[in-house]
């Protein structure tokens, strides 16, 4: 039983990361019906900017004295950087194709992904880059179930970010405008909403969340690599599809389910750990085959945000 609870904790931790990552896919799809293949690169860029900032602060001795402050600082900086990167990508690679076929934009996204990934490889090298993780060692022991500080950090941060996102999308004026734009671009223009600005903002938010996920993965596994966006990216995409692509609540839910399934399969399926990556894809195929609208989706033609 303790073993199960241990795996459960591990599962929601990983699920939180996927949830943050999946939101960018689903929000962008909701607003312009594009599967943003370059979204994984914002996650990777986040992992790198995070480690660069943390190492810089470490070299100046701040990591030893104020590690949590350093982490918060690097988190804000990284999310901001990736938000701007995503806005630039949208402006350069997607906006000029706004009136073209969906396939053109999709190919442009694929090209952007390759471009960004190779850019990261050329500037940062092909080898793993280690994260300073000394400050997140240790943990709590609750009746034989161990929760590391790192897991608490990921869960706490995920909860805070998801809460802020929900408040933003469902409570604020700009969040309403985002949903309105996703539902009907002509009508949103007729009430005075500048859809270009809303689309740009959607990319920024999605990339900011992916960047936070990138830092947390870097801290969790202790290192980042230039191609780290790919496999987790496809899993996060599977989470978005599972939840019902375009649906924000669905992406959160899908992320937690994918994370949980992956951990539980690795723990309980014989030799499951050796091919744990397979399970997310099995879910993806099963959802596409049996339930293409996903858990929260109602209608494939329609867009839901």
């Amino acid at each position, binding site marked *: 039983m303790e073993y199960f609870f241990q795996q459960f904790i591990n599962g929601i931790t990983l699920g939180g990361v996927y949830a943050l990552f999946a939101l960018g896919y689903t929000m962008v799809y909701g607003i312009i019906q594009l599967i943003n293949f370059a979204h994984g690169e914002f996650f990777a860029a986040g992992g790198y900017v995070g480690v660069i900032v943390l190492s810089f602060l470490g070299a100046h001795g701040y990591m030893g004295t104020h590690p949590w402050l350093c982490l918060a600082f690097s988190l804000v900086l990284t999310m901001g950087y990736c938000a701007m990167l995503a806005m630039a990508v949208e402006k350069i690679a997607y906006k000029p194709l706004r009136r073209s076929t969906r396939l053109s934009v999709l190919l442009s996204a694929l090209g952007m992904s390759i471009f960004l990934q190779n850019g990261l490889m050329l500037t940062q090298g092909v080898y793993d880059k280690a994260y300073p993780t000394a400050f997140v060692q240790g943990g709590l022991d609750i009746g034989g179930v161990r929760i590391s500080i790192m897991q608490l950090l990921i869960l706490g941060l995920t909860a805070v970010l998801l809460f802020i996102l929900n408040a933003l999308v469902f409570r604020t*004026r700009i969040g*309403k405008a985002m949903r309105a734009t996703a539902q009907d671009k*002509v009508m*949103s223009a007729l*009430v*005075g*909403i500048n859809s270009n600005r809303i689309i740009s903002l959607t990319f920024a938010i999605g990339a900011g969340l992916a960047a936070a996920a990138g830092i947390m993965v870097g801290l969790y596994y202790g290192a980042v690599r230039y191609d780290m966006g790919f496999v987790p990216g496809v899993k996060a995409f599977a989470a978005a599809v599972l939840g019902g692509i375009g649906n924000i609540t669905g992406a959160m839910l899908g992320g937690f389910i994918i994370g949980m399934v992956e951990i539980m399969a690795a723990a309980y399926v014989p030799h499951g750990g050796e091919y744990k990556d397979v399970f997310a894809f099995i879910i993806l195929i099963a959802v596409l085959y049996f339930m293409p609208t996903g858990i929260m989706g109602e209608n494939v033609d329609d867009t839901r945000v």
Partner: protein
Amino acid sequence: MAEPILEMQGVTAHYGRIQALKGISLKVFPGEIVTIIGANGAGKSTTLMTICGIVRATAGEVRYRGEVISSQSPDVLPARGLIQVPEGRRIFPRLTVSENLDMGAFFRKDEDGIRRDRDLVFELFPVLKERRRQPGGTLSGGEQQMLAIGRAIMGRPTVLLLDEPSLGLAPLIVQQIFRIVKSISEENKTTIVLVEQNANLALNLASRGYVLETGSVVLEDDARALLENPDIRKAYLGE
């Protein structure tokens, strides 16, 4: 007479290679109700969408308050008082009734004024108040039309463009909606451009009318004269 508040001069518009408007010219003066009547596909809705910049004029000019607006981005016009209730109402289906009204006031910052206008809309259409937490997509056709007009009122229009508010509605609801359109015009001095297939209803409300046929204005006159015109009676009033 005064300067027109809204004017189209030789406006053409195309959907791909098909010409939808073949040089429309019309004038709307402050405070009046003008109607555009015509058969399906005559270009009535395209005319309104071209005024709002959703459909781009390929030639000619649209002027609003003396300024050419045909090259402007459509999203700047509502704040200047040019507001449309489009064909098919276009309620945001997954926003609540209340959120749909908020969107009508999107460009406004005066919270108190917005709240007053929301109360006004709820007074005009009590059913919207009852359903304010319900998604817009779950309303009936008549309620959606009320919400669409309410959403437009939230933007405090100077010129209100209405596209077929009677479409698909029961006669009683149509009467109610036309009564409210009339009161908007009388109480707020709002200028109204009304596109209708129901020519009888429209010409009885409006002071002047334009008749559109396949993308051109074929007739313009006082509404009363149009009502008595034998050709119009035959073609649009079912006689």
